[in-house]
């Protein structure tokens, strides 16, 4: 059942690469991926916003994917890219609304990996947070954890949207399975060390990663 839909997503990618918006739209619509994204957002961020916002961020994600591919970029997983672009946009929008700004679809920008306006102050703030995070890396213990977390922060700094275990594995020379485990431990350790350093933190979404770990028991690490 899924194979034809995945194939349609690949057709959409091929259409965007050759800058054929009509074929892109047709394949995207046929794949029902935008339906899936909207249903997923409704479920995950239930009650966060009115329904039209989920639609708006799905539209923005479809546009973002097209622009990336037509502009010569590449994506490993078009479905994953669309989901992350949509979710990032939703969070950015939510942050904007917290600051009492009016909703404006035209302002939705997929390229911001976190909420908030991209001002110079915000840039400095993010740079400071990154510096703080990197300063905690040596406290994480295992060298491979430091390697994985360091690579993740580099990607974040470069405003990457899509980064899966295989990407990290390719860059670090580890296996995808090791990356999954190291990443999970890395985030947990980083939060623990941050608290020790006096930084107040919420639980975040590490729980999801921990749940994934519980579902997939550890395998042998191959550094």
């Amino acid at each position: 059942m899924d194979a034809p839909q995945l194939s349609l997503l690949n057709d959409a990618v091929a259409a965007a690469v050759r800058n054929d918006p009509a074929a892109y739209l047709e394949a995207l619509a046929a794949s029902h991926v935008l339906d899936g994204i909207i249903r997923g957002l409704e479920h995950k961020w239930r009650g966060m916003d009115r329904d039209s916002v989920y639609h708006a961020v799905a539209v923005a994600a479809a546009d973002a994917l097209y622009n990336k591919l037509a502009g010569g970029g590449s994506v490993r997983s078009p479905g994953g890219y669309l989901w992350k672009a949509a979710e990032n946009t939703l969070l950015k929008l939510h942050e904007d609304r917290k600051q009492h700004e009016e909703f404006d679809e035209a302002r939705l920008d997929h390229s911001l990996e976190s909420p908030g306006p991209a001002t110079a102050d915000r840039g400095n703030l993010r740079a400071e947070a990154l510096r703080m995070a990197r300063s905690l890396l040596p406290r994480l213990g295992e060298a491979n954890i430091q390697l994985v977390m360091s690579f993740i922060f580099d990607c974040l700094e470069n405003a990457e949207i899509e980064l899966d275990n295989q990407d990290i594995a390719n860059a670090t020379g580890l296996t995808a399975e090791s990356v999954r485990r190291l990443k999970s431990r890395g985030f947990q350790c980083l939060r623990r060390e941050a608290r020790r350093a006096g930084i107040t933190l919420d639980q975040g979404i590490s729980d999801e990663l921990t749940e994934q770990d519980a579902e997939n028991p550890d395998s042998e690490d191959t550094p």
Partner: protein
Amino acid sequence: MNVEVIHEEFEKLLLAAERLTIDVDVVHMLKEGIERPLGAEEAQELLRRVVSRLERGAEARGDRERQQALHGRVDDLTAQAMAARIRIRAAAEAGPVHKTRSLELLSSHNGISRTPVVPRPVFHEKEIPMLGGALPNKALLSQLFGDSQPIFGASQSLNPSCRRNQYSANISSACDRWAAICTVLMSLSSVSIASASRTLSSEIRSCEPAEHNPGLAANSRRASAYAFSSMTGPICPL
């Protein structure tokens, strides 16, 4: 810089890093999409917005090619995309297609190995991956015609002269039979023309009477050509 603000930003950074690296279950997402799709009106409106957004993007980027492809076509493209959705939904609701007849090629037989056909045959401008190799004849024929009929009707009980006449008749019958077989072979999309042709020749040889038959080679060639044109005719006219 305010420490609290930096801490807040640090928290956001961690959340962003976690979101960045989470593996998205795309298969589940697509399943949700097909099982709980948007309503027709909702989907139509969504697609209209995608078209408008792509057009605005093209305008902002000065992408004339994309602008031309989209300009004034919101309704047209939306209808086209909606039709594609309906087709896929109909296919999904109909369930998977089950092959009623399929055959496995032998991995190796008389030096013929099971290998992909290169170059790939093209049908309606799409490459069709096919495998070439040897087929288990008995299984093939029994699937096509049942177990009750003899393959080519060659009877070993006739006297030599009768057998020769019978053989000629059998060759014609074989050609017709093979034309039918080959049509089915092509529809199975799992055997190459070359393989089918080779199998045909070997089957015709298997009909050869014990004594020398000078007409055999010519008949065999004619039969091959006949079957070959029958096979290729409806698929890719020569």
